[in-house]
């Protein structure tokens, strides 16, 4: 069990570093979603099923969707601006 946790934590921290440092913002958001998902598993391991459920549905699911939608809007507008000019 210990090794699984260690592995998860290392992947999570790498994901966080990738989320912060990646050039493409969409990839950062996906990495953030990965971090949230692993956090949710850790919550489950730490006997907090309620929080794990919330983190999985809100943090990994909806929050990522909100990020992607906002980025999509911004990119669409950028593309339209380029087309117009």
């Amino acid at each position, binding site marked *: 069990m210990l090794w699984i946790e260690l592995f998860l934590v290392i992947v999570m921290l790498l994901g966080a570093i990738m989320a912060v440092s990646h050039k493409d913002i969409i990839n950062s958001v996906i990495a953030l979603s990965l971090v949230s998902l692993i956090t949710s598993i850790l919550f489950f391991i730490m006997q907090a099923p309620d929080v794990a459920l919330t983190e999985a549905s809100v943090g990994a699911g909806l929050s990522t969707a909100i990020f992607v*939608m906002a980025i999509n809007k911004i990119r669409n507008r950028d593309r339209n601006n380029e087309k117009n000019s």
Partner: protein
Amino acid sequence: MKKILSLIVILTLIVAIWHFLPALSKNKAFKIGHFYIEHAIKDTGASNVVTSIVLNFRGFDTLGEVTVLFLASLGVGFLFSGNTKNYKPEIQPSLILRVSSRLLFPLFIMFGAYIFIHGHLTPGGGFQGGSIIASAVLFLYLGSKDKKLPGHFIEYLESLSGLGFIGIGFAGILASNIFLNNFMPKGIVYTLFSAGIIPVIYIIIGIKVGLELSKIVADLIKGEENV
């Protein structure tokens, strides 16, 4: 500049861990936690201790939390109030996505409702169920060609369910002079109809959170005004 910053960050990390490890490893007795564990099933009738804390012992926090989410949906709705166009995806969804989104939508809703109705027995509750409902709405959007949620109507429902939460708290005042008191009969533990007002509040919260998050999703996905 950036390198200095990251160096500072790493140094702080090391110092913090160095200092905090002994405190964490002491593994103190958690005082109020034990009280809640002891009293949850006896005094609230909910077998999920977290639910009994969220809705009964510290129910006022949850009222605030629901208000924060209400504020967010109000704010997002306010910021995008100029956008009135419907959602029109650039790439049309395929037939499979269209049909399956319609087929699965009621199942999603049912799953969300199941989670918030059983909040006092199993993990989960209003917030989790509500966010699942919101993802159902998102799914419906993704599988549709042209869609619009009735924004004003949702706002009405949101405020109504907010008032419902306060109303239940107020019923506690009428029944026993204590706000948010669990005045209803506790029922038999481990069954669906138990724990007094807890399932009622969780259903209200589930509906409210579902509406608010779906409204945020709908506002963010809506078409642009001036494009």
